[in-house]
């Protein structure tokens, strides 16, 4: 049986080429702008529901993974970012970026937005949380 040699497969060069042409940071910024840095409804790890979570506008994005896949006929691009904020550390001169969460954005092959997944650190004082009164 022929074993698939994935390590040196052409697919990696092709993927790199595709990803080089995509301005992933701009795609993520456009998304954050479109939702006005606000997540309208979020469930945390304890199944607590937040009506709204407002993200700081000065957050920084770090692309941590990119992938291309398909489900049936549909092809998609998936980008995962870490959301960080530089916080002034009083006893140091440097700024220390603090992680406030992650976002996964999924686009179709025309780079049109399909979906998103969020993981937010609701304990972070940098996020403004709004819970609904019972």
């Amino acid at each position, binding site marked *: 049986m022929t074993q698939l040699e994935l390590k040196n497969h052409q697919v990696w060069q092709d993927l790199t080429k595709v990803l080089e042409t995509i301005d992933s940071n701009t795609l993520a910024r456009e998304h954050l702008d*479109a*939702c006005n840095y606000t997540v309208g*409804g979020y*469930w945390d790890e304890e199944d607590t529901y937040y009506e709204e979570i407002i993200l700081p506008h000065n957050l920084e994005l770090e692309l941590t993974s990119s992938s291309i896949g398909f489900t049936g006929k*549909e092809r*998609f691009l998936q980008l995962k970012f870490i959301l960080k904020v530089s916080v002034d550390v009083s006893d140091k001169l440097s700024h220390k970026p603090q992680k406030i969460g992650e976002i996964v954005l999924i686009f179709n092959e025309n780079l049109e937005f399909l979906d998103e997944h969020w993981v937010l650190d609701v304990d972070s004082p940098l996020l403004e949380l709004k819970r609904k009164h019972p």
Partner: protein
Amino acid sequence: MEALPNNWFYIQPDTVYQTTNGLLVSFANEQIKLGIKYDQKGKHLKAIEKGEAPGRGNIGLVPSQEEGYNLKSKVLGKGGDRRFHAKLIDGVLHFPSLATEH
């Protein structure tokens, strides 16, 4: 008309429920099974109850990209790894049982 329950266990197949916003919804038996299996906290029902929402950054009903489907229920955060798709049939949003990752 009955109000949309907040737990999949109380949903009967092909019964039309009404959300607080006046949206009419119904569910196939297979969809109810999916809900009971994957959505024990009824987060998707809460999303459906919320109604139509802008496609980006929101829980609720957002446009479905699946052919023949109109809207999908979207949950963000824990339990947000599935979308349930629905078709608008004669003014009722029906969930046949199509679940996708996005």
